[in-house]
Each structure stands twice: as C-alpha cells, then as structure tokens.
C-alpha cells in the first residue's frame, strides 16, 4: 500500500491500479478497510485515472465499501473514469448510488 491511498481529514482517496480484478480487489479491500476503521473515514473517492480494466470483482469491492460507509452516513464517489470503466459502472447499476465526477469536486465539502 502507501502510494495507493491518501487520507485528507475524513476523506480517503483510493488510487486504483491499472487493472481492478479479483486479485487486485482483494488486496485493496483489506488495506482500505483498515484505513476506514482507523482514520474514521466518512468519504471515499475512487480515482480511476490509471485504470483501464475492471470486472465484476471491482464492482463488488466498490459496493462493499459503499454499504459500509452508507451505514455510517458516509459518501462514495468515482472520479476520472474513462469510457470503458463508465460502461462497466453503468451496466452494473452502481452509478445509481455513487456519483461520477470528472475530478474532485472543488466546491464540495468532500476535501
């Protein structure tokens, strides 16, 4: 871990790897959950800038974090999503519960 995460206040930015599959998602899940617990995280930003592949394991990973955070009144967003990833997010229906932004929304209270 290390470079893949950034904590700002109670916001956690997760810089996703080039490929988010079952293998990578499992590792991310464990590291992210430790941070979420220890740092009292209320908002997760999934940054897809480096990502060009994701399958349903990635959807499961995002859904899982979303459920945990919603339970505590938190928020989850996705940023810098390319066409392919947008299609996967749309097909899975997950776009209905997490907002997709071009970049970190400047005017928001997220950061």
């Amino acid at each position, binding site marked *: 871990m290390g470079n893949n995460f950034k904590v700002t206040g109670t916001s956690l930015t997760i810089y996703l790897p080039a490929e988010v599959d*079952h293998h990578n998602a499992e590792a991310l*899940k464990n590291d992210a959950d430790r941070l979420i617990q220890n740092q009292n995280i209320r908002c997760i930003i999934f940054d897809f800038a480096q990502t060009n*592949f994701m399958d349903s*394991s990635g959807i499961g*990973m995002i859904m899982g974090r979303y459920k945990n955070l919603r339970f505590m009144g938190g928020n989850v967003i996705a940023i810098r999503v390319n066409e392919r990833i947008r299609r996967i997010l749309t*097909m*899975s229906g997950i776009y209905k519960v997490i907002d997709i932004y071009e970049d970190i929304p400047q005017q928001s209270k997220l950061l």
Partner: protein
Amino acid sequence: MSVENEMKLEFDSRSCNEGFARVAVAAFLTQMNPTLEEVADVKTALSEAVTNAIIHGYEGKVNKITILCHIRQQTIEIEVMDQGVGIQNVEEAMEPLFTTKSDCERAGMGFSFMEAFMDSLQVQSEPGKGTCVKMTKKILRTENKYER
C-alpha cells in the same frame, strides 16, 4: 481464405493468474485484428469466467483451469473449464445479482457480464465434476492480420 486456429492454456487457479489469462487470450485474439473495444469485451468476459472457476469452482483451492480458444472464420470461441464443485442450478446461477458468496462481496454479475460482452454463452456443469463455460464472439473486422 481459411482461417482456423486453436490454442490451449492450462494454469493454476491462483488469483494472480487472472491477469495472465486475460493477456494471453487477448494476444491470441490480435490475429483477428479486433477493435480495442472487442479486445476489452473479451478480456472482461474471460476474467469473469476465470474468477468464477477460482472462487466458486475450486473455492480458493489450487487446481488446474483450462482455457481452450478456437478461431473459426471471424468468430472466437472460448471455453473455460474447471474440475471443481460444479453448479447445482445453472439457471439460478445465471440470474443477475444471484450469488452464493454475498459475504465475500461478490456482485453476482459474472454471468451477466459474460452475456453482455459476448455473443453467446453456454454453461455446462455437473455437481462434483466441474464446470465448462463456452462463449463465442464475432470479430467484425474482416482483414486478417497475419495470414491470408
């Protein structure tokens, strides 16, 4: 112009091999001169099938997964086989959002993604014997890259 080609791949059911399997099949596919989107579609569908074999078929135990790819004219046929636990009810397993592993945060979308990204999908399974997922996709570009 007869275009027929075949390859077979066998590897351990470790999650680190998921990326390898995707790249290997994508590399085999390049001779059909596919678009980037077609490559991405095949990679996603294959990833779902291989992940299923690892998580559900072998339930995390290390065993062999076999991938058989066959190119016939403009169609690629991909079979992903395991000798794992098999599926009790294939019809139910293919329902969107159905999952037997909701505690592991599985989205239940594997088969839906395979169906969405490929042209056809067949699942043969016998409990205790294993599962074979067969998918086909027509690659629409006509010019063949290497042979004629």
